[in-house]
């Protein structure tokens, strides 16, 4: 790493997780990332999702000057856009991706407790969740819940399938292996 990348001004660079939540509107990502770039920030991994009509994003940002200075750099834009801003110091952990081995897809009539029950069963069966995405679809009168989970488990498809079986009275599910081709 070059010396100028390590120090900027008097402070050492540090990684932060910047989280933003608020009402969705056009141009949020462009405005926030521009202000981070102008402040000398470097983006790591990020994930933006629209949940309902709400905007949410988590961004890994490496920057010098400390968390408070980072917050102050972004705050004018986030305040103007009506976004809640949260900044936490983190370990970077880049270049350590795990490859998911199993996918669990669950769907059924929406009811309270689906995620808690499914993930509880998976945790007991030794399944580590790496990616979870859930949506409420269907009509407002008859909502359906769709849950997509990817992760790793030492126990294999059958064990996970059996672990989920007691829930089959109220939800449909399938468990499949994810074969990753490395070419």
């Amino acid at each position, binding site marked *: 790493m070059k010396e100028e990348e390590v120090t900027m001004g008097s402070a050492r660079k540090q990684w932060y997780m910047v989280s933003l939540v608020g009402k969705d509107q056009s141009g949020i990502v462009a405005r926030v990332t521009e202000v981070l770039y102008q402040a000398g920030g470097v983006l790591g991994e990020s994930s933006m999702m629209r949940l309902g009509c709400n905007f949410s994003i988590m961004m890994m940002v490496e920057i010098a000057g400390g968390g408070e200075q980072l917050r102050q750099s972004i705050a004018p834009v986030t305040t103007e856009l009506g976004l809640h801003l949260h900044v936490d110091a983190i370990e970077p952990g880049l270049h350590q991706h795990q*490859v998911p081995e199993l996918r669990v897809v669950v769907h059924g009539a929406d009811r309270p407790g689906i995620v808690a029950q499914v993930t509880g069963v998976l945790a007991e069966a030794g399944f580590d969740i790496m990616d979870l995405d859930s949506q409420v679809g269907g009509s407002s009168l008859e909502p359906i819940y769709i849950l997509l989970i990817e992760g790793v488990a030492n126990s294999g498809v059958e064990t996970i399938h059996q672990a989920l079986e007691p829930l089959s009275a109220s939800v449909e599910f399938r468990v499949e292996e994810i*074969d*990753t*081709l*490395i*070419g």
Partner: protein
Amino acid sequence: MEILTYPNQQLKQNCEPVEQFDESLRQFVSELEAFMRSQPGGIGIAAPQVGQMQRICIVDLTGMTRGKKKKPVPNQGRLILINPEITEWEGFELGREGCMSVPDYTGNVIRATQIAFSATDEWGERHEYESEGFEARAIQHEVDHLEGLLFLDRLVSRRTDLFQRKQR
């Protein structure tokens, strides 16, 4: 030999067809195959991945199994594919891919489930093939390399899965 890794721009270039089927070609194919087998996974490789800009790739899924139950993967064994041309594509399936030339990243790619293709072997003889499933995916991945395409050029959103994937 050494694997070139993206963003090396050689990986984004078209390769030239092989015209001379001579001893030096067979020597290169042999070295490429040995190198492929020395890599983790080691089921496929394309010449541009080692900086040789020629339409040569190798696929061999012999002995490969899927999942904890070690189900064998249907395959035709060692395929030396010189100047390969895929002529027919049928069906599609979403699957996860990575690449020796793109370390530390895997993503979802849609590929044909069945293909027909022709290729010349290292002795200059042309063959017609058909392939399906994981082997067909590997062949499409390697032939893409010969046209300067990486799986990154075919990535689809991880959130399309429920709607795109063939139901089992």
